[in-house]
Each structure stands twice: as structure tokens, then as C-alpha cells.
């Protein structure tokens, strides 16, 4: 027997780095009992940044490895850089919280690291088997993190609820995958794509049912209506930095997965999946806009805001065009920055040593901590989509793509629901600047939290200058999944 040709593992170099780093930190953490988190947190963040730097420095032409199950291209590179940086930021803001709440265990950054590995593999998945395995790796890490504050009922409930509903979604996804495999005879994205693009092949309704189930499974991970039930409870119950983690990078990864699956193998069926995406987008935008009005818990409010934002992103996908995907990528990048910044602000809401989450606690913040108030205002303006903040450009590109694809009515619904959403974002701005001052928050602000909040606010402001390069690089990424 001739020896098998050596695999070219270079496309998966960032994954190998993260895996080896995770294994190494696991050993270090077990050997150093007690203060492991202080060492492993920054080390995990550092390894994620190095992995992102490797991707930035490497060649972006599409390359497959592991028998075609893993693909590294400009699309995966764009999302991976964002995911790794986002997870690194989430790990850094978590350090103080974990110590304050006396749950500083080294497993927190470690699981976040393994989750980031799973997310990177999700956006690189090039077959349905790889898609499922990477999704499970990411989900399992997040379930455990959500239940990480194991002595409180709410955190345990959040973890359990997320786990059970997530298992249900995995079941839906697997059922869809099995149908697609049964009717097409392959799990590889390229082969399914060329099979469906073939004009002579008859449209098989079995694979179509499979596509619906797959879309439903991924929509659950995105937390969009009608699969959003878990989102507010998990955001509220999970420890706040874990909320920051769940709300940012995994959404990018799930969105990347959805984009690749719908555009690459099922690209020929735009007309079929467009209806699903349009429905999900409308329902998410409306529910996110109206349900958040009643919320007073900042984390629950961010959950509904997240539902609405993913809805806006899906408007771009519903267009089904290259510009639409381009807009989705820009939107998701800006969304991640806004979410991380806002959660960093929530982590700064700390009074006499204990964390508070009610938005009324922010009253009169401008008089006590004007800089934090300014940062929060920029973040809220950006979430509301008010120019010149970056949030405006994110929405602009997805709505423009929808209008270009003759979905003007969808863009109108999106605009109207973002007007409704302005109410609750601007209510926070009003609380911060015009209400009677409450007691001040604990000072000084923790450096990591202040840095993440400040940098995100600055990024959202300077994005005006950098929006064209961002749009262009997202365009290169989007082209990678179109045939």
C-alpha cells in the first residue's frame, strides 16, 4: 500500500494554534490551583489575538484541507478575525467579574477559547458533517459557560434551558442534514451546490424540506424569531461577561454558517429560502422592537435588541445578492463592536461591590462619570442607527441591498421597526443625561472594562472614515462564497 499523501494543514494553522494553546492552558490551570484564571485569561486572549494576526498575515485565496471538509477562504478569514478578537475582548472583561463574584475558575477562559475554536471551525465548515461537529463544539462550551455561576438558580436555569432547547435545535438540524444527504447522496457543500445548479436535475422536495430544517436549526443558534425563546432568559441568567460572549462572537459564527450554507450549496435555490429568511427577518425586527420597550433589566433589553439586530442583518441576506452578503458582514462586524461595548458598560455598573443591571440605576450618570456616560451615549446612538455612528452604516448597507433586490417593502418594515427601537435606546440616553442623579458607581473603572468600552465607542465614531475599506474587504469576503 502506498502511503497517503501528507495533508496540507497550513489552512488550519489558527485552529491548531488555538487547540494546542487550549490543551496547554488546561494543564497549567490544573497544576496551578486557585489563581489559574489570572494567568490563563490573558494568555487565552493573547493566543486568540495571535491566531487573528496569523489569519491577517496569511494568503486569502481559498484552500481546502482534510479531504474538503475544511475551507479557508476570504470569507472565513474575515469572520475569524472578528470572532477571535471579539472572544479575546470578552475574556478580558470577564476577569474582574469572575473574581468579584468568587467564581474565578480557570475553566471560564479555557471554555471560551474552545468555543472560539468551534466558531472558527463553523465559518470554515465545508461539509454538513463539519458544520454539525463545529456547531456542537461551540454550543457545548457556551452551555457550560452559561451555567457557570453554578450556585445561583438563575444561572443554572439559563444553562439548562439553553442546553435543552439547543439539543432540540441540534435534532432539527441533524434531521435536515439527513434529509439533504438522503436526497442528494452527499454531505459536501461543493457537490450539493453543483448538483442543484444543474438545470437538468429535478428539484427534489425532500432536500427542500431538509433545507428548511437546517435553516431552522441555525436560526435557533442565531436566536431569531420564532426560535428566540431562550435568548432573554439566558442573557439575564448567565454571568454578565458570559452574556457578552454569547451575544457577540457566536452570532457572527452562526451568521457565517447560515450565509455559507444558503449561498454556497443552496445558492441555486434563492427563491426557495428567500421566503423563510424574509419571514424570520420581519418577525425578529418587530418582536425585538416592541418587546424591548417593556424591559427594565439592561441584559434582557440587550437580548431583545440582539434579536432585532439579527433581524436587520437577515434583511441583507434576504436580498440574496453579493451586495446583500457584503452588507450583512459589515453589519455583523459593527454589531459585535456595539454589543461588546454595551456589555462592558453593564459590567461597569457596580455599586458598593455588587453588580446592578436595572437601567434605572443609570440615572444621572453624566454628572458623576461623564466619560462613561459619553461612551454609553455613543453606543446607544449607534445601536439606534443614528448617523454619524457606525450603526447607521450597518443598517444602510443591508437596507440598500434589499431595495436593490426589489424588496423595498422589507426595508420599509426594517426602517419602521428601527424607529420604534429608537425609543428604548434613547430612553437610556435620557436617563443618563437628564434624570436625577442616583448614587455613583464604584470607582475607579476597571482598566479592561474601560478599555473595551472606550475602544468600541471610538471605533464606532471613526468608522465613518474607515467604512469604505471595511465595506471593500467584506466585499472580497462575500465574493468568496459566490459561484
Amino acid at each position, binding site marked *: 500500500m502506498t502511503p497517503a499523501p501528507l495533508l496540507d494543514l497550513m489552512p488550519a494553522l489558527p485552529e491548531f494554534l488555538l487547540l494546542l494553546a487550549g490543551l496547554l492552558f488546561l494543564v497549567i490551570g490544573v497544576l496551578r490551583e486557585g489563581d489559574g484564571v489570572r494567568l490563563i485569561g490573558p494568555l487565552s486572549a493573547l493566543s486568540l489575538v495571535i491566531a487573528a494576526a496569523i489569519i491577517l498575515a496569511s494568503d486569502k485565496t481559498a484552500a481546502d484541507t482534510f479531504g474538503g471538509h475544511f475551507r479557508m477562504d476570504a470569507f472565513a478569514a474575515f469572520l475569524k478575525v472578528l470572532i477571535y478578537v471579539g472572544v479575546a475582548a470578552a475574556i478580558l472583561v470577564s476577569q474582574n467579574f469572575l473574581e468579584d463574584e468568587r467564581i474565578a475558575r480557570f475553566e471560564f477562559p479555557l471554555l471560551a477559547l474552545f468555543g472560539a475554536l468551534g466558531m472558527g471551525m463553523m465559518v470554515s465548515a465545508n461539509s454538513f458533517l463539519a458544520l454539525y*461537529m463545529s456547531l456542537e463544539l461551540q454550543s457545548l462550551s457556551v452551555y457550560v459557560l452559561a451555567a457557570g455561576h*453554578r450556585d445561583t438558580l438563575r444561572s443554572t436555569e439559563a444553562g439548562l434551558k439553553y442546553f435543552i432547547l439547543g439539543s432540540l435545535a441540534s435534532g432539527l438540524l441533524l434531521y435536515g442534514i439527513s434529509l439533504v444527504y438522503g436526497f442528494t447522496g452527499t454531505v459536501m457543500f461543493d457537490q450539493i451546490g453543483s448538483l442543484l445548479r444543474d438545470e437538468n436535475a429535478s428539484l427534489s422536495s425532500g432536500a427542500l424540506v431538509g433545507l428548511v430544517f437546517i435553516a431552522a436549526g441555525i436560526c435557533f443558534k442565531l436566536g431569531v424569531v420564532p426560535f428566540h425563546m431562550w435568548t432573554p432568559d439566558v442573557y439575564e441568567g448567565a454571568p454578565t461577561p458570559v452574556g457578552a460572549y454569547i451575544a457577540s462572537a457566536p452570532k457572527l459564527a452562526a451568521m457565517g454558517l447560515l450565509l455559507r450554507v444558503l449561498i454556497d450549496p443552496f445558492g441555486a435555490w434563492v427563491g426557495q429560502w428567500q421566503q423563510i429568511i424574509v419571514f424570520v427577518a420581519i418577525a425578529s425586527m418587530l418582536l425585538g422592537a416592541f418587546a424591548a420597550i417593556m424591559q427594565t433589566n439592561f441584559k434582557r433589553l440587550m437580548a431583545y435588541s440582539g434579536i432585532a439586530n439579527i433581524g436587520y442583518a437577515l434583511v441583507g441576506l434576504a436580498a440574496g445578492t453579493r451586495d446583500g452578503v457584503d452588507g450583512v458582514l459589515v453589519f455583523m462586524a459593527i454589531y459585535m463592536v456595539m454589543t461588546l461595548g454595551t456589555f462592558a458598560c453593564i459590567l461597569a455598573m457596580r455599586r458598593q461591590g455588587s453588580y446592578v443591571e436595572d437601567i434605572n440605576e443609570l440615572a444621572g450618570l453624566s454628572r458623576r462619570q461623564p466619560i462613561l456616560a459619553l461612551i454609553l451615549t455613543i453606543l446607544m446612538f449607534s445601536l439606534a442607527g443614528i448617523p454619524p455612528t457606525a450603526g447607521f452604516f450597518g443598517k444602510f448597507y443591508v437596507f440598500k441591498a434589499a431595495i436593490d433586490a426589489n424588496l423595498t417593502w422589507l426595508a420599509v418594515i426594517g426602517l419602521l421597526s428601527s424607529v420604534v427601537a429608537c425609543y428604548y435606546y434613547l430612553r437610556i440616553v435620557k436617563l443618563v443625561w437628564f434624570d436625577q442623579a442616583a448614587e455613583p458607581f464604584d470607582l475607579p473603572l476597571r482598566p479592561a472594562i474601560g478599555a473595551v468600552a472606550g475602544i468600541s465607542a471610538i471605533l464606532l465614531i471613526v468608522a465613518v472614515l474607515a467604512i469604505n475599506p471595511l465595506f471593500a474587504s467584506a466585499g472580497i469576503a462575500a465574493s468568496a462564497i459566490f459561484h
Partner: protein
Amino acid sequence: MTIELALFYLLSAVTVGCAVMVIASRNPVHSVLFLILAFFNSAGLFLLLGAEFLAMILVVVYVGAVAVLFLFVVMMLDVNFRRLREGARLYWPIGALVGVILLAELILVTGGWAFAGGFETAAPIPSDPSITNTEALGRVIYTDYVYLFQTAGVILLVAIIGAIMLTLRPRGTLRRQDIAEQVHRRPQDTVELRKVDTGAGV
């Protein structure tokens, strides 16, 4: 051929009998033991089919892990099975109905397949008699599917880390053996010589 046929009927009969006993026996421990016997017999059926890898996996996974876990649960949790069974008689019509529906569906499916014909069946992968199932599986798992195999390993690692993180509590009362400390103990630190007067305590 006749020996195979006789074995098939023997193993099938024992499997069905065990399955009935799993739900019929009064003692839950007996139920689990019958379940284990049913697994062994199913493994025998797989062997008759020539699927030796599947047979061994069934024994290792289901008998070695799942059934033993059941046994632990049954024996460690103090569940009053007699009370659980009370009222079971009330539900037997519904149970019987579900059973009849399942039977009818099975008859429809197999009957349709046997009599109507003309169904397209997927072409089975041609079997190569020179290699065993295990070898054939090994050839693809460690080559074409090595990525998925390794990912499964990482998922299991994350599961172990998660289980330990959520359940392990450091307890102060736990006394672990610290070999380094034992080796470094010096007699002069721990042994004390005292002069004890005759007839007096220490």
C-alpha cells in the same frame, strides 16, 4: 445454512422474550439485567449478519456503559417502582392503541415493499470480502474523516471539562495523599521524645 437459521430464530426468540421481561418483571434490577441479555442477543444477530464491528460496539457501549449506568441509577436512587406502576392499568387501552397503530404501519411498509415492488433502493456499497468491517471503517475514519474524528475528540474533552467545572467542589475535609510532603518529612519535626514519669500520664 440451517445452523444459521436455527441460531437466528434462537437469538431472536430470546431477544423478544427478554424485551417482554424488561417491562413485565416486578423487580427493576431484573428489568435491567433482562435488558443486558437482550443487548447480548442483538449483538449475536449482528454477528450472524456479518457486522462484527457493530456487534462489538453494541456490547461495549450498551452493555458496558449504558446498561451498567441504568443499573447504578436503579440501585442508587430510591425510586418506588411499585408506586410508579400503580395506575398503569388505567392506561393500557392507550398503550394497546399505540401498539396496534405501530404494528399496522409496519405491516403496511413491509407489505408495500414486498408486494408493490418497483421501489428504487439505494445501491449498497460493494463489500470487499478481503477486508473486515473494522478495517474498512478504520481506513476512512483516520484518513477522509480524520478532521471529524479529531473534532469529536475535542467535543468530548470540552464535555469532560464542563462536567468537572459544574460539579466538582473543593472540599476542605478531603484528605489527599501528598507524596512530596511525605517524603520531605523529617523525624525531628514530627517525633518528640518525652521523658514520662513512672505511673504518670503523658
